[in-house]
């Protein structure tokens, strides 16, 4: 009986994969505030904040780099993603199908889903470092790539299973859970950092800046880590969610927004999660480094437990969970758009299993900075293509949604834009040594330019289909 009810609930999940979201299902700004604040106050924040410390950022570069980079990210959501989402009200995947054709979209969706699985996997792995504390689990170090114990695998599988079941219940359940957890998580991050400040030598607010420069963000990278500047911080803050804003993945989320201005609610995620939480986790890591004599162990769970007890460890678990949830949901949508007849919950379950398997490998956490930058870069060109298709193509005498109106399953212009952008990025990286964090900006212009030029060349006059 209970099982049949559960099945009924799963089958009733309606996500409007191939139709515009109707007026009755639009969500309030509060729903997006909770979603963004929860999603970007995540398990990864316990990794990224410490990595800035490890890369020798100065306090000034961190504070101002994050200020500018996060502002650019919010503006990208508000002025690039949200207006298209509120007009079209379709998932990224359905829009791509109309523009790029079914075959090219299928390739993109597989790449996209895999990236989402790896990202969600890294968050589950972060949560596992907290679950392992009472069992005295051997924690991974910066050099670990493979699972180091059976206990680690068991912890990952338990968290992966719970996360997957919640994601299977659909966006409403995900948003509700994130909304409940978000205010508490933010306060735990803040409280943990404030409570350890006296141990770092900060006993009044006026002490903070001096200690921040002398003991936390010292400007000196750890051994084996490259030096980060203002520009690294700014571009990382802007592009770490490049796939979501410039890459348009959040069309799938923001299509539920009543107004395009809800894109500005992303500021809740940026200035709480990617500002306060990165600063807070950096403070916690600086204390850990001092107390552990600069150990290579890299486990957010024990670091948070040291600063905030059981609540801190729970925060790491929940923070990983609330980001892994929507990420698995997005991956499920990507796969489902290849086979629309599949049930959303069944696809999400398969994606959750792949994610859990990936999470068993600590390499996902240790190489997170590089992975996040790579994932944004690979998916970004399709965002440039959508933007050009939506606004610019009709103005230069070409047609939007060319694959749909011409009946083609493979839009050569979109494929050329995607591949040439990635080839151009590899060229800049390999021959000119441009770091991965800086490739997204020139890459966007290449993608937009190539798509417009090739579309103008290859598009033929199309007979409008009649009923």
């Amino acid at each position, binding site marked *: 009986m209970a099982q049949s009810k559960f099945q009924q609930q799963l089958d009733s999940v309606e996500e409007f994969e191939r139709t515009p979201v109707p007026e009755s299902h639009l969500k309030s700004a*509060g729903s997006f505030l909770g979603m963004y604040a929860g999603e970007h106050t995540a398990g990864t924040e316990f990794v990224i904040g410490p990595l800035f410390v490890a890369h020798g950022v100065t306090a000034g570069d961190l504070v101002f780099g994050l200020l500018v980079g996060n502002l650019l990210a919010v503006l990208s959501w508000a002025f690039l993603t949200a207006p298209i989402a509120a007009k079209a009200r379709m998932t990224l995947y359905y829009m791509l199908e109309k523009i790029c054709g079914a075959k090219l979209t299928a390739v993109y969706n597989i790449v996209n889903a895999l990236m989402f699985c790896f990202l969600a996997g890294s968050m589950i792995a972060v949560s596992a470092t907290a679950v392992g504390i009472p069992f005295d689990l051997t924690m991974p170090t910066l050099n670990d790539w493979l699972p180091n114990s059976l206990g680690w695998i068991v912890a990952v599988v338990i968290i992966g299973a719970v996360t997957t079941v919640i994601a299977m219940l659909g966006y409403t359940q995900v948003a509700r859970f994130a909304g*409940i957890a978000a*205010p*508490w998580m933010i*306060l*735990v991050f*803040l*409280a*943990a950092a*404030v*409570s350890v*400040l*006296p141990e770092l030598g*900060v*006993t009044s607010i006026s002490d903070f800046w001096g200690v921040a420069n002398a003991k936390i963000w010292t400007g000196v990278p750890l051994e084996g880590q490259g030096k980060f500047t203002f520009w690294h911080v700014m571009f990382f803050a802007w592009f770490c969610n490049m796939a979501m804003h410039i890459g348009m993945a959040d069309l799938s989320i923001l299509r539920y927004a009543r107004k395009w201005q809800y894109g500005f609610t992303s500021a809740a995620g940026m200035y709480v999660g990617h500002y306060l939480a990165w600063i807070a986790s950096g403070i916690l890591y600086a204390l850990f480094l001092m107390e552990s004599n600069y150990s290579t162990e890299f486990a957010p769970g024990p670091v948070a437990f040291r600063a*905030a*007890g*059981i*609540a*801190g460890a*729970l925060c790491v678990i929940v923070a990983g969970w609330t980001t892994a949830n929507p990420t698995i949901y997005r991956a499920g949508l990507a796969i489902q758009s290849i086979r629309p007849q599949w049930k959303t919950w069944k696809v999400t379950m398969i994606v959750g299993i792949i994610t859990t398997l990936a999470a068993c490998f600590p390499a996902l956490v240790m190489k997170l900075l590089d992975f996040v930058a790579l994932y944004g870069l690979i998916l970004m060109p399709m965002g440039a293509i959508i933007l050009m298709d939506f606004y610019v193509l009709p103005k230069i005498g070409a047609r939007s949604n060319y694959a749909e109106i011409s009946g083609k399953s493979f839009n050569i212009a979109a494929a050329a834009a995607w591949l040439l952008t990635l080839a151009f990025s590899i060229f800049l990286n390999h021959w000119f040594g441009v770091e991965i964090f800086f490739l997204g900006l020139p890459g966007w212009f290449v993608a937009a330019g190539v798509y417009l030029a090739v579309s103008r060349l290859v598009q033929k006059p199309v007979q409008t289909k009649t009923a």
Partner: protein
Amino acid sequence: MPQFALKIVSWLGLVLTLVPSLLVFAGSLDFPTYKMLMLVGTVLWFAARPFSTAGGE
């Protein structure tokens, strides 16, 4: 329990999550007590919040 009471309990949970850390910073509270109060705050928040918003906001 009425919704209003549940809201008060959930807000108390958030207060207990943050305020003890400020007292530690000010030197007025020891570390073990701070951790215990934070855990109590966590339990209150998650016990009361889902029901205080039942039916949606």
